[in-house]
């Protein structure tokens, strides 16, 4: 992989060469990810019906072709990109399809896997479009205010539609339900990154110092209060605690990274605590979630049978160290939302702590790769965007995984790539596409420097 244009300077101990592009590694890992998914698909069929499911070859071919197209797009348009991002996306998406297919076998009247497959195809297509069309991430910076306007519209749209399962976060068009809030995440991350990259010096201007906390000045307190109000508004209008938490967490993280002011963190935590306490008191929906978290088995003791969280804990416990094996668990006992919010319980029961840890570590790697791109990039917008997108994944995984395993109060949210939900899959592919673009820029600039 040496390059003819490389100049070797005498004082360097090793010859400066062009960085390896590692596309071969990516392809190998994609093949592994596709094979793992097909293996899981077959394992489900063998466990449930004793035969390899009829669509195994088609499923494998479909997933393989999609992954291959995505790989080709990356190879052509983002050759320096991080080779781990795409395989992780493919593996998580493939595993999610396996888990949903597995749960479909328990609910013959309600098949979600075919729809999810359509959405996954859309997601990968969108990924390819972003990788091909977006040649430079800095272009996005120009559209910061378009982004925030679009995000606000998307967030307020569902208010006009009837509530589904107590939350106003869906809109239904032509039989598909779409969760516009999912798309808003990426748009807001772009906006936050652009806004903070432009204003971080002003925001970093220190106000009064209280004990060891450097408080921000009142003049620049406006934006954070606005975002806080937006989060609370989302919460109250849409009864969606998860999204509200995510927006606020994302903003505070980016604000801290941009300004380095621990004071922001303190203010953020204070506001979050205030909001949480107020909402926990006033909103019965949220209040009961907190009570469930504190006493997951209270409904059993009261003679009403186990609630969803208790069933989820039972499922994780039943998995133990190595799991029951795909298709052999009983996570369907969770009932409603077993394929979406509680999808992780199926992974926990059937793949065990070993499989669950592997999934957590896959997410961890995805986030780490995002942060790594953020560290390698030079421009503040790119850095903040990479950190923001990675943080969305991290926060989302923590909030929902912590919720279903009883670590924190449960809030409805989709497990990235795994959970049933079209908007979520498309959004996550968009995040991976942007991270691919950012990591490509990060390494390309280094390579160009070396080459020069």
């Amino acid at each position: 992989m040496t390059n003819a244009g490389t100049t070797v300077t005498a004082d360097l101990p090793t010859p400066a060469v062009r960085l390896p592009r590692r596309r071969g590694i990516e392809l190998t890992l994609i093949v592994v990810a596709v094979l793992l998914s097909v293996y899981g698909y077959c394992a489900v069929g063998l466990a449930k019906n004793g035969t390899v499911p009829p669509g195994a070859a088609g499923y494998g071919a479909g997933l393989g072709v999609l992954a291959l197209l995505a790989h080709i797009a990356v190879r052509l348009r983002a050759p320096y990109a991080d080779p781990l991002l795409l395989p992780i996306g493919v593996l998580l998406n493939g595993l999610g399809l396996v888990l949903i297919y597995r749960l479909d076998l328990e609910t013959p009247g309600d098949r979600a896997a075919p729809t999810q497959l359509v959405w996954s195809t859309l997601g990968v297509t969108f990924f390819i479009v972003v990788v091909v069309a977006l040649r430079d991430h800095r272009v996005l910076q120009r559209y910061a205010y378009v982004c925030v306007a679009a995000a606000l519209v998307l967030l307020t749209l569902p208010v006009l539609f009837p509530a589904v399962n107590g939350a106003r976060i869906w809109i239904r068009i032509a039989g598909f339900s779409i969760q516009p809030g999912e798309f808003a995440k990426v748009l807001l991350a772009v906006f936050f990154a652009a806004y903070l990259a432009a204003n971080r010096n002003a925001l970093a201007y220190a106000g009064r110092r209280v004990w060891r906390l450097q408080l921000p000045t009142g003049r620049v307190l406006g934006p954070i209060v606005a975002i806080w109000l937006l989060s609370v508004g989302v919460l109250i209008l849409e009864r969606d605690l998860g999204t509200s938490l995510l927006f606020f967490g994302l903003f505070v993280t980016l604000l801290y990274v941009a300004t380095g002011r621990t004071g922001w963190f303190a203010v953020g935590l204070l506001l979050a605590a205030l909001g949480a306490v107020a909402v926990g008191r006033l909103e019965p929906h949220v209040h009961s979630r907190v009570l469930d978290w504190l006493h997951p088995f209270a409904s059993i003791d009261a003679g009403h049978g186990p609630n969803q969280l208790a069933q989820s804990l039972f499922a994780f416990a039943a998995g133990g160290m190595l799991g029951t094996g795909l298709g052999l668990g009983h996570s369907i006992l969770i009932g409603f939302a077993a394929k979406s919010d509680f999808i992780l319980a199926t992974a926990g029961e059937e793949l065990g702590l070993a499989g669950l840890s592997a999934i957590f570590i896959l997410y961890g790697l995805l986030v780490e790769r995002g942060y790594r791109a953020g560290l390698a990039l030079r421009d503040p917008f790119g850095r903040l965007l990479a950190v923001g997108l990675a943080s969305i994944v991290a926060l989302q995984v923590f909030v929902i995984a912590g919720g279903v395993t009883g670590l924190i109060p449960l809030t409805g949210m989709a497990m990235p790539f795994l959970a049933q939900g079209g908007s979520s899959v498309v959004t996550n592919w968009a995040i991976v596409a942007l991270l691919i673009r950012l990591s490509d820029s990060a390494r390309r600039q280094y390579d160009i420097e070396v080459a020069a």
Partner: protein
Amino acid sequence: MTDSMTRHIRLAAAFCTLLLLALLVNATRVQVFQSRTYDDNIANRRQTIARYDQPRGAILVGGKPVTGSRDSGEQLRYERTYRNGPLYAPVTGFASQEYGTTLLEHSEDGILSGTDSMLAPFPLWNDLTRAQNPGGNVVTTLNPAAQQAAYAGLGTRTGAVAAIEPSTGRILALVSTPSYDPGPLSGNGRSANRSWARLNADPDKPMLNRAVRQTYPPGSTFKVVTAAAALDAGVVTDLDAATNSPDPYTLPGTSTTLTNEGDGCVDAPLRSAFEWSCNTVFAKLGVDVGVRDMSGTAEAFGFNDAYVKIPFSVSPSTFDTTLDKAQLALSSIGQYNTRATPLQMAMVAAAVANGGQVREPYLVERTTRRGGETVSTAGSRPVRQAMHPATAVQMKELMEDVVTEGTGTNAAIPGATVGGKTGTAQHGIGNSGTPYAWFVSWAQGERDIEPKVAVAVVVEDASADRSDISGGGDAAPIAKAVMEAVLGS
């Protein structure tokens, strides 16, 4: 481009690492450390689902299964089925997804459901594979012909039959009527609920196993015990010597007198008193033997033993050990506080037939894996000497006389030696209820070296008048049919 931002990104990354660690630690807590607690939570249906996820093992009678399993296609997949349910219900009990298990289904549940660790091909095998053993089979000691004969003999009447093999204690027949079909209780749906409610509301109590879970006043059949005690204690030494007993007999310390149904009981020797079931003679004999020896003999036969398991528990038969003489007189003719299960009275007859030795009765010959390999066998049971062997010889003689020329001629089987004793037990307020008709007996075929069967029959709603004869009239033919079935097979 500032270094401070790099530092902040690293700190934010460190924060994300903390979140990841928290998730991993919490997952380990739930899946490893708390896992057992959660698995055993009563609201966790996984153990129940696993239990019904495979066909339940079979209960075998005469080499053929009397039970089966049906794939219901529901969450609790396999449901119990019964072939000839009412006939074997007093043995199998039921195995319901909603109402639990009873009798053999209960006491052999580990084998039948596959949870018994003995079913594993190798020790610790299942801990490694997390696999479940297929349900094993339970081979019973029942003789299907005897069971059928007893069930047909009782017909529509309320009653019970217990038959055992005297030399081993193997239970050959265990019947209770009216019976019920345990099959409809197997599932968990509305129909199971209805069956359960109907069976529980039935005034005839079809789910009561009268052969082992109901005690009756044994009446005159208890005279076998009293006679054995008198012979053992030396109160009577010659079966044909006069017993110096009046008729009517005034209960000691009271002015109540006891009479007989028939004549010829004054000073009757033990042989004829037993043959014609003289209350006066046996009441006095009991008093002469005394509380200590009477209860000693009764307990040797198995009375007052609260821990009989065949393998399901048997209601204890009772002989009161704190009696005054009048109570002892009544107790010695099977009244007052004396109560016995049909199985206990079969044991009494079996002890006489088996040279005075009582073998603990049992119902399970052996248990096997699905493939047929033996998991456990009944093995030899403890023996108890209820009376001297010499006394047993005399008792056999007395019981044979009852069948050849006394009240039990209905039980005679041509070509076989049969010994028996009839009984009628008064009950109800002021003895107003229809008396229970009893018959206990044993039989030895022509070519058998020892008696092959001992039977006790009780019929609750005997049709005859209040005479001792009803035991011979209602119960003896049933006993005869059961004995014939055993001798013929």
